[in-house]
């Protein structure tokens, strides 16, 4: 499968979804899309027919506010009917602004930041207890790493040498109030995880499909403990008009911006 083309297709769907609903976190959706596409279309052992299978790989979207890209992928993969996505953020819809496990394919509710890694620790421990071969993947934002609970979980994962747990940080460097380094600096983030006892893989370009795949495969192969992939991504990736712009954390495009962004996504596709 052409994963790059798939990512472009998903971004276009996310753009439509957020533009139509008038709400969403487009910047973070676009920075994480390539990672999600790699996971769901190449690596995760899960699918619509496996949602109850105890051997399925587990995935937790800890940066729950960027659920739109996940919804589009779940629909594209057949977990949920494509047409239901039109209800996103509408009254009474289960497709709300954060993941919830009423939606087929979503394991756990999230949205309050800093919970995902500890959920992943629990899932990984369960896998080990039951001698199952599945892996647990947790995608976190970089802003949420200021939550102390992340580091409680990081400690536990290393203590139990959870080699079946892979964390990925969508390191786009921006959060709602500014850059992560202005708001609450992470400094040597790789060093921090390393000091906590994690195997650390850094991706210079966390939107590059080749690097993402290489990173995931290296993480899967690591046997001594948990691995974190720090993916240096670009917030708003795919539409240069919104890239690396803190204003686009959860801004909704106007008609003009929407049309311009559609053209940008198409142009990006043609350059590939």
């Amino acid at each position: 499968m052409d994963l790059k083309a798939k990512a472009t297709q998903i971004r276009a769907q996310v753009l439509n979804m957020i533009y139509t609903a008038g709400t969403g976190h487009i910047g973070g959706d676009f920075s994480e899309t390539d990672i999600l596409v790699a996971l769901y279309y190449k690596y995760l052992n899960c699918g619509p027919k496996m949602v109850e299978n105890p051997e399925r790989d587990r995935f937790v979207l800890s940066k729950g506010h960027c659920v739109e890209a996940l919804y589009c992928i779940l629909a594209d993969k057949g977990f949920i009917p494509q047409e239901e996505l039109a209800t996103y953020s509408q009254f009474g819809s289960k497709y709300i602004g954060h993941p919830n496990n009423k939606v087929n394919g979503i394991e756990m509710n999230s949205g309050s930041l800093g919970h995902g890694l500890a959920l992943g620790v629990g899932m990984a421990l369960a896998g080990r207890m039951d001698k199952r071969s599945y892996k647990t993947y947790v995608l976190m934002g970089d802003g949420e790493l200021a939550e102390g609970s992340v580091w409680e979980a990081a400690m536990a994962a290393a203590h139990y040498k959870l080699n079946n747990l892979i964390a990925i940080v969508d390191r786009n460097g921006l959060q709602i109030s500014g850059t992560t380094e202005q708001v609450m600096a992470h400094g040597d983030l790789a060093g921090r995880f390393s000091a906590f006892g994690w195997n650390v893989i850094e991706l210079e370009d966390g939107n590059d499909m080749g690097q993402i795949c290489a990173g995931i495969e290296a993480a899967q192969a690591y046997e001594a403990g948990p691995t974190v992939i720090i993916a240096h991504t670009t917030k708003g990736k795919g539409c240069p008009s919104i890239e690396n712009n803190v204003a686009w954390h959860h801004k909704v495009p106007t008609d003009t911006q929407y049309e311009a962004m559609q053209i940008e996504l198409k142009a990006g596709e043609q350059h590939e």
Partner: protein
Amino acid sequence: MSEANKQVICQVLMEKAATDKDIVVLCSDSRGSGSMTDFANAFPEQFVEVGIAEQNLVTISAGLASCGKKTVAVSPASFLSTRSMEQVKVDVAYSHTNVKLLGISGGVSYGALGMTHHSNNDIAVISSIPGMRVYIPSDRLQSRKLFEALMEDQEPAYIRVGRNAVADVYEEGNVPFTMDKATVLQEGSDVAIIACGEMVKAAQEAGRQLAEQGISAEVIDMYCLKPLDREAIQRVAAKCKAVVTIEEHVLIGGLGSMVCQTLCATHPLPVKCLTLPDTPVVTGKSQQVFDYYGLNADGIVVAAKELLGAE
């Protein structure tokens, strides 16, 4: 009075774990104070230590439960109910995971350690979360019945127990128990005494004292705070002239408040709520604390007679 409630709960868990590999107990450096050391030693593969990290304790429990584990998270009630409140709300209640939260050394069990270690608002905190159940058993015999029932269901719940062994309310071999239904200890028609946890013993004693004085008291063990047995409250309200509630908890959001809310709707009656105060609690042994605030049989008798206008 041989064993603390938590010790009996550990025994129940060990009995069940012997044939159920999905039962997992988690502690936050609390296996000793939670009386779970025997479980940890007997079932090391079904025990998880998370260190002093109560938020992590609850969320890891939820992650395990999402994979089919029947988890029991054991930590002092003071920390479990407030430090981890958001984890309880999101990962246990909202995600609806099979996590039993066992709050040990509840109320003022750690009386001399100060407000940091008191959990005199945990009923209010946890019962305010949609989907959470709250139980406070009175003695070791009821604790066994309650935990045997809880470990058979798949729903989240919070259970508070005290630190020390307490006098038996029930008798061996004679422990009436129906899940989510209050237990009537003594029938009466003048005043109803509704109690939970360690206060049930005081209510039982007060019932006897009132009887000696010619006052007929109905004594109710309301171990199920949520879902509250409203029928039991309405039933006694229909035949009694007044109600006294007693609990090791503040008034706001506690048993007394819940009883008043229930009565207001259908059976307005004079009610006296005996509770801990809305201030940092005086420090000392728990019985000293109870006596200081009138949370004992004498306090109940005085309150009942005041309400009834009796001498």
